[in-house]
């Protein structure tokens, strides 16, 4: 393998991991507030098709992202009303949301099947992008990738450095205590769920508009589920979520190249690799019980009934 191939793999890795960074960060915030939303796959798909249609009609990436985020947030609003207002079971509602999203996105996309877009141009920053190797490796991605890193930093800062973030984590640990201190548990959870939906939406937009700019039914292809797994195996910590997402992206790209080299391994095994590798690595780095206990939201998935008043 030449140095150039390796560089190509590395650059492609970041792009392959980005949808996961978005979706998993959103899910992380949702789960930190104590809500388990298993509808990520569905929200990503609806976000993807909404963004794709907007992009095809207007050509504006900005509008596509806004539409995708709105669509994802609307999907999560359905979930939020079911679980936070009607107190439905979170697991069942999340699964239903995914099934609903798969169907809805396929329906919305009937006319767009196999339509291709131009994709999102990579940024060219004068001087910086021209540095050999480093220029390609650091300064020549599309704008959505830089946005995802910005959001990553923002989420980490929000959760661990701000009062609002501390309240969110506190609610996820003990909604009862939070209520006793006078925080609006349900209100905060609504916001967290909506943020999760918007992030899933933008993750979907990235898949359909930037990563493989062509509409294929069900094209999110399980990334929503991987995002949920990432959050758990990364023990609800933003930086580890990013590491996991890029690891998944890296192995995905690497196995394409291995297939290209004509090595005699059944392709099904190679396609399995990204899932196996990501889970194996994250399980190993996070098997410490204390990290899990300190970081996992204790009330995750449990419906909160505010005290009778």
């Amino acid at each position, binding site marked *: 393998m030449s140095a150039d191939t390796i560089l190509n793999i590395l650059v492609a890795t970041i792009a392959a991991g980005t949808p996961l960074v978005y979706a998993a960060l959103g899910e992380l915030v949702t789960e930190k507030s104590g809500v388990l939303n298993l509808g990520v796959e569905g929200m990503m798909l609806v976000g993807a098709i909404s963004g794709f249609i907007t992009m095809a009609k207007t050509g504006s990436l900005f509008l596509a992202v806004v539409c995708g985020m709105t669509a994802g947030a609307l999907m999560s609003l359905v979930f939020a009303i079911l679980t936070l207002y009607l107190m439905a079971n979170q697991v069942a509602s999340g699964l239903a949301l995914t099934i609903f999203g798969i169907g809805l996105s396929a329906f919305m996309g009937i006319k767009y099947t196999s339509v291709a877009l131009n994709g999102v141009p990579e940024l060219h920053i004068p001087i910086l992008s021209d540095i050999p190797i480093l220029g390609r490796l650091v300064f020549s991605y599309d704008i959505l990738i830089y946005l995802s890193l910005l959001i990553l930093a923002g989420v980490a800062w929000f959760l661990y450095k701000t009062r609002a973030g*501390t309240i969110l984590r*506190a609610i996820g*640990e003990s909604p009862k*205590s939070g209520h006793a201190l006078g925080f609006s548990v349900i209100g905060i959870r609504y916001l967290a769920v909506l943020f999760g939906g918007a992030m899933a939406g933008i993750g979907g937009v990235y898949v359909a508009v930037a990563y493989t700019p062509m509409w294929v039914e069900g094209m999110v292809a399980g990334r929503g589920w991987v995002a949920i797994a990432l959050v758990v195996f990364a023990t609800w910590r933003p930086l580890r979520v990013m590491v996991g997402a890029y690891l998944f992206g890296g192995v995905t790209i690497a196995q394409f190249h291995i297939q290209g080299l004509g090595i005699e391994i059944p392709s099904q095994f190679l396609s399995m690799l990204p899932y196996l590798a990501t889970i194996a690595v994250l399980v190993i780095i996070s098997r410490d019980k204390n990290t899990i206990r300190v970081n996992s939201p*204790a009330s995750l998935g449990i419906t909160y009934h505010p005290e*009778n*008043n």
Partner: protein
Amino acid sequence: MDIIGLKTNDGTRKRKDTETGAVPRLELRGMTKIYPSVIANDSIDIKVASGEIHAVLGENGAGKSTLMKAIYGIVKPDRGEILWEGEHIDIINPAHARKLGIGMVFQHFSLFETLTVVENIALGMENQNDMEKLSKRITQVSEKYGLPLDPERLVHSLPVGLRQRVEIVRCLIQKPKLLIMDEPTSVLTPQAVWKMFETLRKLSEEGCSILYISHKLYEIKELCHKATIIRDGKVTGYANPADETPSSLARMMIGKELPVCSQDKPDINGQKCLEISRLSKKKADQFGTDLNNISLTINSGEILGIAGISGNGQRELTNAVIGEWLSEKPEDIMICGNPAGNLDPGERRKLGLGFVPEERLGRGVVPGMNLLYNYLLTAHRHNLINWGLILFKKTSDFAKKCITSFDVKCGSIDDQITSLSGGNIQKFITGREILQEPKLLFVSQPTWGVDVGAANVIRQSIIDLRNQGTAVMVVSEDLDELFEICDRLVVIAGGHVSPCLNVEDTTKEEIGLWMNGMFPGGPAESLN
């Protein structure tokens, strides 16, 4: 008596101040809160003057906590008025209450374990963002009131006594005008209780009113200026605690004399029923405690009490004795002469072990099942099963016997166990274990959150069981209880077990010191 006399003078002076026309800090008129199944508060009137320590005395379930939650804005009363410094107000939520100057220390801690002390305190305040400044103020305030705290510690790493300190400091830092304390001493050593009383007296002198909720009569006599006594949601009397005797207070609280357990111990030639020798165990996680070289013996016909602040190895010791954790060497634990260290709980029960766990629901009984099945849960070994089939007639006879002989108040054996009150569930579990005629009974926190009447039934039945020749091991945080029923006491602190003391030869103060690890061979780590 002298000390109490002095306090009476003090208290009287303060009351005179308030009676000369000053507006009370807080006045409740006709407070009523109705829940679907029960009237929690029925037209309750209370007046609290500034600087007054006012006791709200009542049994578990009398409605004290509901009333306090109404004052703190967590529960909305159905009827009634709240007057704050003479003005009518509706307290909308806890944030509003804090703004008025009301602070509350909860019975069940409202702390977030995975956050630090300073983060926890910041959450209880409005718009508090500068953590460094807050840390400094925490150190200042906590030292001023003699409650030192490290602001950067994670709460889960603090022992229970210090967690409560966090709650108190969280209130003090906001300079409250009224502090509500809901059963604050249930987790403290006697020394820590005195220390807290000093803090409260200091606050009272500074003009802060305190609503002090408790069912411990001597505390109220010692500390409070006035008392309101509540029974079944109604006020049954107002009193000047210094003028009352514990039994007159108890009459108002439970409507009859305070029950006392009868002792008269028969002389039984004791055989070793449980022998633990040099048992050590590494903790399972960061939140556990290592057990260090524990040796204990319990003979038939005696009650051995294990005192200690929770989180000092009680959980680990319990698991080791009842078999939820297995030892590598069978000889580590001998039950009635049989090596049992490697036996599972079922096999140990066959050797004569009975167990009443600390967690009633989930470990003592299955919440979703009725009394009959819950009786079967541990008693099935006693020929209630034939060829895999349940003998319903026999089981229900036993379950009914359990209900009548242990005064379990319930509709029938087909009732869901969760429809019973905590005290009745505890009586049921204790009865179930006792009816199986164990040779060794392990009881963990026998009367936690149980009303006085039920607590007495449970204690008496433990004593009666001892008198029949059973060995009983009681783990409890309640020193009064241990001194009432035990023959011998050991203290567990930091996973070490102290030498054994006869109850007649020791005092609560000595045991309190030992609970901090200050015993021969103990960890001697001060909790302060």
